[in-house]
């Protein structure tokens, strides 16, 4: 928000980068590599795109460092939330498979 004097960024250049990264994201999901690698690539690409929007469209690059730190702080809460929910994520398939498992036939006499 502070009107620090800076030259206008190349907005159209940023647009082309965002478009290229979006196409790359869609391409990544069809790559014949491990699922975890796809996830890491997708998260990396998404964070790069989000950073481009924040830095150039929201002008965070031209603001004070303190403002950038304030903007980044909630990301730590997001990471914390993901780790807090991980136990649920790993527990659900176990419960689902137990519930869906066919019942054993009664023992024959």
């Amino acid at each position: 928000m502070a009107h620090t004097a800076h030259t206008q960024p190349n907005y159209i250049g940023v647009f082309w980068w965002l478009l290229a990264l979006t196409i790359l994201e869609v391409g990544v999901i069809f790559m014949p590599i491990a699922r975890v690698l796809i996830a890491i690539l997708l998260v990396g690409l998404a964070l790069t795109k989000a950073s481009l929007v924040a830095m150039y469209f929201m002008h965070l690059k031209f603001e004070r460092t303190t403002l950038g730190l304030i903007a980044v702080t909630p990301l730590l809460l997001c990471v914390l939330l993901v780790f807090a929910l991980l136990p649920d994520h790993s527990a659900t398939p176990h419960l689902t498979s137990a519930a869906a498992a066919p019942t054993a036939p009664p023992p024959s006499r």
Partner: protein
Amino acid sequence: MGLTAFMTFLLICSSVTMVLALASIQREDMAGLRKFLALTILGGLMFLGMQAYEWSHLIHEGLGLTGNPWGASLFGTTFFIITGFHGAHVTGGVIYLSSYLIRSLLGRLQPRHVNQIEIAALYWHFVDLVWILVFTFVYLL
């Protein structure tokens, strides 16, 4: 997938037109501001139209807040809550930007109001930024 990727493209385009609207008012070019504001609003409306189409299609297929015919029912809850809240923010943004476009058309918006447009632009870019993450975490992963 193709539809959602196009929706992402639309929001990115609308962020560009929004930043060009801000650049216009900074140059005191009010005609440029109106043109780019209108394009941003159009992008938002097209996004909402496509989201409505996607929702109606998925609901017709059986996806709901508590049910998912293709897997874990929690996905339906996550999908509708996250995309629903995002769509509500896009709707709010469209109304927000429309109010400035109307004010400008009525001659009640002057170059000295540049801060108001900058705040509206920050809101719109943040909605775009959140969609970038939603696209990855809800649709791609």
